[in-house]
């Protein structure tokens, strides 16, 4: 796998990443359409994803949750906007409550997947767009608070370590 292009445009709040794989388009598509395969890569190892529902058809939906190291389970949802197997998928990705009900107060992201055949293998590009500056700001402040909590935890660990060894 090679990531061969990253394109970011703050003005349109867009990030596109393109990668090439040594596999035919049908196989690449399978990693989106089969929930058991999808959940092997969607979440990071520390927050593995479980797809409770996955209906890749126009107007279809997905419901998933991720399980954190402390057992916390953030929920998410997809709304399928465009689907053209094995080439194209467009969806809205958002946050949900513990019961999987979409949270209307949280920002959503628009995601577009394009898979094209190469002479050998496939190219896949993922384009993520944030709907508004407000949505981005909300996500930035959330992410920053998360990052901050993480950094603080790490600093505390280091200090505790110094206290016991020093």
């Amino acid at each position, binding site marked *: *796998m090679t*990531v061969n292009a*990253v394109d*970011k445009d*703050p003005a349109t*709040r867009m*990030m596109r*990443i393109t*990668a090439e*794989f*040594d*596999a035919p388009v049908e*196989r*690449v598509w*399978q*990693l989106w359409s*089969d*929930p*058991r*395969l999808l*959940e*092997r*890569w*969607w979440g*990071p*190892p520390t927050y*593995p994803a*479980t797809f409770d529902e996955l209906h890749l058809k126009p107007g279809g939906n997905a419901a998933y949750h991720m399980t954190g190291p402390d057992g916390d389970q953030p929920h998410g949802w997809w709304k399928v906007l465009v689907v053209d197997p094995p080439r194209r998928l467009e969806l809205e990705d958002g946050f949900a409550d513990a019961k999987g009900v979409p949270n209307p107060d949280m920002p959503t992201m628009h995601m577009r997947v394009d898979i094209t055949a190469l002479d050998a293998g496939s190219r*896949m590009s*993922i384009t*993520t767009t*944030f709907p508004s*500056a407000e949505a*981005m*700001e909300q*996500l*930035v*402040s959330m*992410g*920053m*608070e998360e990052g*901050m909590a993480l*950094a*603080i935890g790490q*600093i505390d660990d280091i200090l505790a370590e110094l206290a016991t060894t020093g």
Partner: protein
Amino acid sequence: MVVDQLPAKDARRTDRLFHALADATRRDIVTETLGRERSVSELARLYPMSFAAVQKHVAVLADAGLVSKHRRGREQLVRGELGRVHDVHRLLDRLEVEWRDRLDRFGAVLTDGPDDEIRIPSDPKSRRRYP
């Protein structure tokens, strides 16, 4: 790219940031003022220290760009500025890192075994987790 050498200016900025975050009270002040402004006197009531000591902490945080200071009448207001430090660029960078990781895993799942092995049945009991 994700792993870039930090220019000297950024390195100094990072030093200030770490210095500012290396103190528990200062970290708490940032958390307390994220999304809501508080006056220095309000903050001083939260900690067992003098108004002047809190004011010093606020100055260190402001120097690192973690809070901003505003005046309202005789009061000095403090606002956590984490979200605005790198705003849009920061989020797009984070998203890029997230997708690079995802695509690494995507590639690993793709190359994991021959075609017939990759078709794992949709039976919850056979769900594969990360190794």
